[in-house]
């Protein structure tokens, strides 16, 4: 089986911060070759110095990243992407504001060259509750949140602590299927949530992930979620499916995991977890076992994950 290209779908209504997040990801790709498919370029503020070349529907960025507008035909854009000289390592699809990310995920599932890693849905903390009961788009917003594997609650800095707590509770009660993380300006460390470099899998130490420094400079408090990254060492063969399912369990406190494990049949498998969604595929050649797990600080630890997954048994 050929290795497949991992895809993350970014959904959420207009103004929820999808474009800011996409732009942020492109700026902080950290050497990972990203391809970002956006509905249009119009609101994407990419600095000119990052742009190496641009034609009507592809912007090439320094570091091998590309940004493509897919207009009406996502499947055609995905096909074009496969024809590129250097294949991207990770693809993000920015859904349009009224699109249902679950439906995009279904269409993606038809293309065997791609593997859906997860659906991340952004919610504008200042108005998601109101939008969810809007006469026209209420049911669309509700469906988007229902489709999420991970919900990013954005713009929490604009709320009082009490209001932020209320909207968090509302999301937790109504959309319990997805872990919930806070964000400001859509800024989430790309390495934290999405693209984990393969060479980091071996070397990544356990660490506290720093919130965005520019943001801290200008704000006296911060509302972003703090994440902890754990390098999980597994020295024996495991049932990769069972492990992935347990990592994706609601009690794990885990937001994201990626890595390679030795499966019971002695083949190396890639494990992908985003929120409650997990997948197992054959690992690419040349990689070594190693698994990075990321969760909200205080909610999980090396020990709790090992215990939950019965790794020392």
């Amino acid at each position, binding site marked *: 089986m050929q290795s497949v290209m991992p895809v993350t779908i970014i959904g959420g209504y207009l103004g929820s911060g999808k474009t800011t997040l996409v732009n942020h990801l492109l700026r902080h790709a950290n050497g990972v070759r990203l391809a970002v498919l956006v509905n249009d370029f119009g609101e994407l503020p990419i600095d000119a110095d990052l742009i190496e070349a641009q034609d009507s529907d592809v912007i090439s960025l320094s570091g091998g990243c590309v940004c493509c507008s897919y207009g009406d035909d996502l499947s055609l854009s995905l096909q074009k992407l496969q024809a590129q000289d250097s294949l991207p390592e990770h693809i993000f699809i920015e859904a349009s*504001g009224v699109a249902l990310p679950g*439906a995009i995920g279904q269409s993606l599932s*038809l293309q065997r060259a791609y593997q859906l890693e997860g659906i991340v849905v952004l919610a504008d903390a200042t108005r998601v509750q109101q939008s969810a009961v809007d006469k026209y788009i209420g049911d669309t917003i509700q469906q988007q949140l229902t489709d999420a594997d991970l919900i990013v609650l954005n713009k929490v800095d604009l709320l009082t602590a009490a209001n932020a707590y209320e909207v968090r509770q509302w999301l937790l009660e109504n959309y319990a299927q997805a872990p919930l993380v806070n964000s400001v300006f859509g800024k989430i460390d790309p390495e934290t949530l999405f693209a984990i470099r393969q060479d980091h899998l071996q070397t990544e130490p356990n660490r506290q992930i720093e919130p965005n420094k520019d943001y801290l400079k200008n704000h006296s408090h911060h509302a972003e979620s703090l994440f902890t990254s754990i390098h999980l060492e597994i020295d024996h063969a495991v049932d990769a499916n069972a492990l992935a399912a347990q990592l994706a369990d609601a009690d794990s406190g885990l937001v994201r995991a990626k890595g390679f494990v030795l499966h019971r049949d002695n083949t190396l498998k890639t494990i992908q977890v985003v929120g409650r969604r997990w997948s197992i595929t054959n690992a690419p050649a040349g990689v070594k076992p190693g698994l990075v797990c990321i969760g909200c600080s205080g909610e999980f630890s090396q020990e709790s994950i090992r215990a939950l997954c019965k790794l020392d048994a």
Partner: protein
Amino acid sequence: MTTIYSAKKIITMNPARPTVSHVAVRDGLILGAGSLKELQGFGDYTLDSGFADKILMPGLVEGHCHAVEGKWWRYVYCGFHDRMDPYGKVWPGVTSIEDVIERMQEKERTLTDPIEPLTGWAIDPIYYPVKKITRQQLDSISTTRAVGIMHASGHILSVNSKALELADYLRPGIEHNGIPLGEDGLPTGELKGPDVMFPVGQKAGFDDNMLEFDEPGLIDFARLCVRTGVTTATDLAAQLNDETVAMGARITAADDFPVRVMSLRFHHGVTPEELIDHVKSLKVRSTDRFRLGKIKVVADGSIQGFSARLNWPGYYNGAPNGLWYIAPEQMRSIYEMALQEGIQVHTHTNGDEATDLALDTLEVALKKHSNNNHRFTIQHGQLINAAQYRRMEKLNMCVNHFANHHFYWGDEHYDLTVGPERAERMNACRTALDNNIPLAIHSDAPITPLSPLFTAWCAVNRLTSSGRTQGEYEKITVAEALRAITLGAAYTLDMDNEIGSIEVGKQADFAVLEDDPTEVAAMALKDIKVWGTVQAGRVFAASDI
């Protein structure tokens, strides 16, 4: 150089002189409509009696169709009803799945390359006893080449096993709402929605852009226009990239190109700001026969595809509400900027909730940029109710109703989609006119056949294909319907100053008919024979086109 045409009767749509015997033409424009004696006052002329036994009326205006119809005729016609192609051949309707297969097989036998795809269109299995068509049935046409048949609605594609295999869909484990599976766990061959239709459609011979005209297709589309009396037609949703615009301008500029095409920029895929900028740049590239500079917004999906946005109580069969194709905020930005820039917007709504959104949005936008003559038009508006028309009147809106739907899907709407009460008020032309809403009616070709006289017949008689009258109250008169396919449609395109009636100063655009639509029985409107057209003073006989 003045030519005076005499005709058996000239129906002018000018109430001050509703019928005349002669019309004088100079430089492609109407010099006058009246008696020969009146027109002789303009000086030297040539009398042309070629139409002495014909009926002239203003060139027909199709306010909602797609020029891609010309391209689709290169595929095999598989529709249930008879339909005329660009060359005047009437393809008999295929009335059973066996006949569909036989017609496709006939074409198959002419193909020499064993892997060349075979493409059909306009099939409508709702008319067949078993309302589905399967890949196994299409396999009997060919197992070596991809076979695909687009359904009449444009929302479903049926394909054979080879097409599924080429697209890598013929395998277990497919999970997609648009791909029903058979008992064997494999796709049945029915593909619903653009996400799954496009990738497989390409394997089955549809090109990258199933909705956009190409060069030979545009020329064939123009042939159909001449055969149906149309002198101005819309191409209602186009991307209009530079190459398409250049090609459209070049093709339509040919001396023998017989129709004025108004192509609207579809909102999708760009931001409202980019859309407005693009349309402003298009506006100045307009030519006499290739008109640009208007916007088409699509708010929701279709009723028969259950993707239209309906108000309570929703679909008759309990299907969940449909999909938005635009966010309300985007619609508001487009409306506001368009009003500010003097750009006209046509908005596709099918469900009544989508119409509510358009009305709410325009009401707010007009408070910001007041304009009494914006002519924003609801396209389709199939479920508009009386209260919405009353609001539309206050907002100075126009409507272009999909009258052909009564005939093609009326029974389906009655039984399944919206139920009897709402089916009877679909495309409520009577109520629209009673509320003084400027009215056009349309075919949405290639979804239903291009033929404004047939569309008029649909609005006048409201017959379904099973022969039932659906919505007696919403019928309009023949005179009203003839106005809707001429001056009414011209008004919605903001072109009533130059087309839509036969009077001095307007374009010399005529539909040349063999029978008098005001004299034949209302039930015979659709059977009126079209001799051809005169477009900007140029004569086009259907028999030569």
